[in-house]
């Protein structure tokens, strides 16, 4: 056994339970990534690419020791979205990501509630000194959430050096001192 992932964190908010993305989330993640809902993050993906992307979120935890949390409604273990620290190879800075996978559950503030908790965890437990969110300029909902989270557009921040990323906006989160106060 090469990776030691026992004791991955579980975060609780008023309405949500947040836990490490695991194999039980691959089916729902794959289905989500194949929908138009992922048009602002390179989707919709083919079934194969959606599956490999979902699996890599688990491996992200194994390699980095952190990763996107599965967002579950409290009292259930059914994933409805993803939230939290994300830093695959090539990211110049640590990111806070989010997405609500089930369209029926959009508009309830779950993404906001989850991001507040996972950002706090990234600052507090991982010791991050800053965080950004990379957002497609056409993704109005995500931009609105970034602003609600206190993020500001950072025009000088570097982007991941990847094809088709030109024009992506970098929203910088408030510093740990502001969030943890």
């Amino acid at each position, binding site marked *: *056994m*090469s*990776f030691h*992932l*026992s*004791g*991955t964190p*579980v975060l609780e908010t008023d309405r949500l339970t947040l*836990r*490490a993305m*695991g*194999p039980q989330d*691959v089916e729902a993640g*794959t289905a989500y990534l194949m929908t138009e809902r992922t048009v602002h993050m390179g989707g919709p993906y*083919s*079934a*194969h690419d*959606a*599956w*490999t*992307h*979902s*699996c*890599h*979120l*688990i*491996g*992200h*935890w*194994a*390699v980095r020791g952190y990763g996107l949390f599965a967002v579950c409604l409290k009292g259930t273990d059914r994933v409805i979205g993803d939230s939290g620290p994300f830093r*695959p*190879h*090539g990211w110049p800075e640590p990111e806070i990501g989010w997405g609500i996978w089930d369209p029926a559950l959009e508009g309830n503030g779950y993404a906001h509630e989850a991001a507040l908790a996972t950002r706090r965890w990234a600052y507090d437990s991982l010791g991050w000194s800053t965080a950004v969110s990379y957002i497609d300029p056409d993704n109005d909902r995500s931009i609105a959430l970034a602003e609600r989270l206190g993020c500001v557009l950072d025009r000088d921040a570097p982007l*991941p050096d*990847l*094809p088709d990323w030109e024009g992506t906006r970098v929203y910088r989160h408030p510093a740990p001192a502001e969030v943890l106060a």
Partner: protein
Amino acid sequence: MTLSLHIPRLETPRLILRGPEPADFDSYAAFLTEPKRSWGFGTEEDRPKAWRWFACNIGHWALHGYGYFTVEVKETGQPCGIAGIWNPEGWPEPEVGYVVFDGYEGRGIAFEAATRAREWAYTELGFTTLTSNIVPGNARSVALAERMGAWYERSYRNVQMGEEMLYRHPGPEALGIGSDADGSPEAYA
């Protein structure tokens, strides 16, 4: 919740097959981003994409309980290739996959590693059949599959690789490593 990854450590006379570790990434990336080496396996266009594949393999282990091992030279501890059982979404069947990194060809390493991975799949995972998917023109891979006793069964269109030839491996009984009379896979020490 606990994300447990029980990746065994297998041995052959010259090799160790073990779970991937973060320090292996550079050797994987060098292989995956070099089309001359990885065209028959699946070339990744840059290191970020190679990392995604690397992390995906770990998720594959978490989901299936099997995946690609890092193959290490016992004597030096150096990663020299990748071998294991691969079955992502869209694959026709689980396959035995094998590659060696630059500088390790021609020593029978892939054969030794792939044979051990296949034996493990039959004895420990309880598989009753296995395949290898080979891109047309990959003569080295065909030669290795045939050396393992596999034969051409059919061609098909792979979701990632395009046209591929499906080779069928001999089953556990034909290899003399079949299940016990009670149907449970035989323990392998």
